[in-house]
């Protein structure tokens, strides 16, 4: 007897029932010596504790990376990661970059023309010439 795969009953649609933020981890890398990390060091001491408190669902890791530019790296549920270099940025700008990573879905950036994508079948069905009334022109 051939092995049959189990047919999926439903696809995961985040947000219909429960909502799970797609960003699961943010890594903050900085350098203690480099001048491009100056804003990042200020951010880590001043802004990051509040940011972490407001987003308890995100794991936050801070680690030094010697003689490299500071980087924020986001890890997502779908397994991908996104990194933004924040060299020479002010703490305020670094916060906006962190917000970008927090709100992102983790997918690759795509151009999309149609606003709505649906997994559901068409509600009204497919039009057929053989059904329904005849209509005059």
């Amino acid at each position: 007897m051939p092995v049959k795969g189990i047919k999926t009953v439903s696809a995961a649609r985040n947000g219909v029932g429960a909502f799970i933020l797609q960003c699961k981890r943010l890594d903050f890398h900085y350098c203690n010596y480099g001048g491009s990390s100056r804003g990042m060091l200020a951010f880590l001491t001043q802004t990051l504790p509040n940011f972490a408190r407001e987003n308890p669902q995100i794991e936050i890791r801070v680690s030094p990376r010697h003689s490299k530019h500071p980087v924020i790296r986001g890890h997502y549920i779908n397994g991908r990661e996104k990194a933004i270099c924040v060299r020479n940025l002010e703490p305020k700008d670094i916060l906006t970059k962190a917000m970008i990573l927090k709100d992102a879905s983790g997918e690759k950036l795509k151009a999309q023309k149609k606003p709505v994508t649906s997994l559901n079948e068409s509600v009204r069905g497919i039009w057929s010439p053989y059904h329904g009334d005849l209509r005059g022109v």
Partner: protein
Amino acid sequence: MFSRSVFRGLAADLRSFTPISTSTAAPLRQRAACFHQTSLLRTQQQESSSQSSPTNPDPPLSASPRAQTSQPEVQHSPTVPSYDPSSPSSTPKTRADVPLAKQPVAPAFESPLEVSKSLLSRLPHLVGQSPHYIVAELHARPYLLTEGDHVRLPFLMPKVKSGDILRFNRATALGSRDLTMKGSPHLDERLFECRVRVIGVEAEPLRIKEKTKRRQRHVRQVRSKHRHTILRVMEVRVKTPEQLLEEGAVVVEDSEDTSRIEARS
């Protein structure tokens, strides 16, 4: 049919009395609870999370359970409506932290909902036949939505955060396989409920457009990278005739400017 601007003015008058007492604010708050349950819903989730945090000895940098459930059962209005602007917290946790001037205004309807007899007689058939679709409008653009759809708005919606729940209140049509309820031109927002959840913000790939001027060898590159708000449709629901009558709908004779339900030909 109804104008919120009138009520907004009234609400502003209410707020101008600076020592606003809880007793005057309470009915307004309760109405807000029944119409805008969703905005309250989020605040409660945050409230519950903030309540749980002191019992939890974890340091603030550690991760905690991630899921937000969507339908909390109990809805209690916050007791302290005062707002302390001197507090250093950057984002409000509950409705109580939001200043009165910025709280959502419950829609005030000047007249009760008018439902024609034919609509009321056909409504049970529409309610019973699922799934439903809705043609909801946002900034005068129609979006044909069903439950579970993924919507990428053509703009970045301001002042929303991921996890927020919005309720669409402007629709031109709502239907099922065989029946469609059409507005003239819009359906009354008391006839249906359509909720969407803000999932996040996505960007498009960087666009580079080359600009040239005549007789110059220089080519200018213009870069743009738009950002879009992503929504997920949580529910599309028509109210039953019983619910409408319970909420104070008035049955009127059929006329041109009432909503109607049309069968598919």
